[in-house]
């Protein structure tokens, strides 16, 4: 039997999360609730395009698809392939800028 589509949000999350959330989790939720996370993501997208990171990832994906054949590649495969390279090649200046923004947010949110 299929559960109703309009079921309210699953309550088990709150039950599972009786334990005190970590500081990182708290910050993350604050960022999401305030909409700051969305703005940070937009900024990050923009910066990654500017510095050529996106083109680089695209090229890796293209090469991988070419090697495997275009019908034998899933999104998961691509994410798996580019994740290590992608994480390693984000310029430090971009990381610093985002960190600065998050710091500023934390101060203004007075956590």
């Amino acid at each position: 039997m299929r559960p109703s589509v309009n079921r309210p949000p699953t309550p088990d999350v709150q039950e599972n999360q009786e334990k005190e959330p970590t500081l990182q989790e708290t910050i993350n939720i604050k960022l999401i609730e305030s909409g700051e996370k969305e703005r940070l993501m937009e900024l990050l997208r923009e910066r990654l395009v500017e510095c050529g990171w996106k083109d680089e990832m695209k090229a890796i994906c293209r090469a991988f698809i070419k090697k495997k054949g275009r019908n034998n590649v899933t999104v998961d495969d691509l994410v798996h392939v580019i994740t290590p390279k992608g994480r390693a090649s984000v310029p430090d200046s971009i990381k610093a800028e985002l960190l600065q923004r998050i710091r500023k947010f934390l101060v203004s949110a007075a956590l």
Partner: protein
Amino acid sequence: MSSKINSNNNNNHRINGQISLQPCTHLADFRSRHRSNPFRALQDCLRIKPPGGRAAIRRDPSEVPLCGVCGDSGGGRTRLYACVSCAAVHCHAPPGGGPSHAAAHAESARGGHEIAVDVDRAELFCCACRDQVYDRDFDSAVVLAQTAASTLHAPPHSVTTPTTIRLPQPENLRKRRRIDYRPWTPDPRERSLMGSSSSPLNGTVSDSDSNSDSRSNDLLPWGLRGLNNLGNTCFMNSVLQALLHTPPLRNYFLSDRHNRFYCQKKSNCNGNGNGDGIVNRRNASNNERNNNSRMCLACDMDAMFSAVFSRDRKPYSPAKFLYSWWQHAANLASYEQQDAHEFFISMLDGIHEKVEKERRKPHSQGNGDCCIAHRVFSGILRSDVMCMTCGFTSTTYDPCVDISLDLEPNQGGSAKMASTKSNHASNGEVDCLNSSQNSGISTLMGCLDRFTRPERLGTDQKFFCQQCQVRQESLKQMSIRKLPLVSCFHIKRFEHSSTRKMSRKVDRYLQFPFSLDMAPYLSSSILRRRFGNRIFPFDGDEPEASNELSSEFELFAVVTHTGKLDAGHYVTYLRLSNQWYKCDDAWITQVNENIVRAAQGYMMFYVQKMLYYKASEKQVAA
């Protein structure tokens, strides 16, 4: 002529230009179990989030989705998916990246819970196949929601001012611009021809001359020659200077592709009808009609190129050209003002018309060849008009020889600036761009952003929706389907009143880059950035922007206007061998690039980068 493509009944599903795969068995199963509108519940959860207007899935706007098993909030190594069957949210990481509670959910439910939606992208995913899947109905629902949302956030002026995309033009000019012509892309052979034929253009012509006058002239690039003012003709001189140094145009004429002696001889044969090829003076001079048919602007261009690229550096008088153009323009009843931009349009028309008249056989459809004016300047604009009620979209393609841009309205609102920001990513000069945005200076990129931004058409401009079968409010979005070899941007500095008389000139400064990447304004980029990876409910078959190097352009000429409406003066700045020259009628001077940056641009000419470099490489003065 514009071709109308209504792709509602198109069976070839295309995703950003690629034919899509069949849905996986899980998606097909899901669809067959929910015949009518399987994504109805999801539709209520679609949220369009500024900035960028991206689509996301939230049950209520303030929901913070978390994985139902581990409480992960997504974003790190994981993405969050909501099951489209039961709405449960789970995390997912690719193999090696951690556990996938979404895949576990699909397995434990024993069928029927494989399809999920990425909560931050509103894109469908099959947790069993571990791959993105596409559904036409779902994607059109998202596109419609994004469309509706983008009009809510639009600044008020775009609602009250109906389509300000193009300057309303005199009727016959507009008609002429819609003449059926095909765009032309040079094949590799022609490209290399263009490239190679531009290298001989170095300044070593007058080596043997020893007088001091010609020695100083040698420091100027070849072909740089003043044009005499023949009585308020700076509007013409300014455009001619730009055209004389338009690399592909110059290469065409200097390689003798339109030989004026041959052309005139041929015309006379046609005019006399006797076919013996001998110029008949009597006939030619007293027959006005015949005279008109012999008038050929391309021949006059040919003569001018020969003169300007000769050794002679004395200012040249383009009297013959003015006369021919005047004959051509006199036929345009509504030609009133001596406006550089209108001159540009009408002279391209003039070149086109003559060549078309000469053609005996209809030109072959496929290779898109036309007159030289259109081979160089014509691109294709794409316009999508979407019904605000049902989402039906009608797509039209129109050739254009330039892009007319509105100056941005006076800055002040910071909300607007944010909305124009995302497009700039791939353009250089980021620093100066960002600072200019802060200080509220208009930029060419800002104008292009506005030009390609979705715009709600006013209630007085309702379009007839083929699906609703009534007139409906609509949303229009322009983008560039095909870039020309040379892009001319015309800044609408002259505001015309309803009686079509110039009423006002806008003196506001506009910043323009020396290097411009047009990729953000191409149809493929515009559609993808707006809607993500989807099957579009309209024609989404666009060539991939990043595959084409041709989106990078270099500035080579700026036509500027100073002074009042009627008492103004046109001056052109030319960039040759990366050095700027000011062409003020008969006077040519070398100028610092900062003077150019500070100038009040009226028309900006950009050439595809590869042609620019080829053209300048060997011209550096000794």
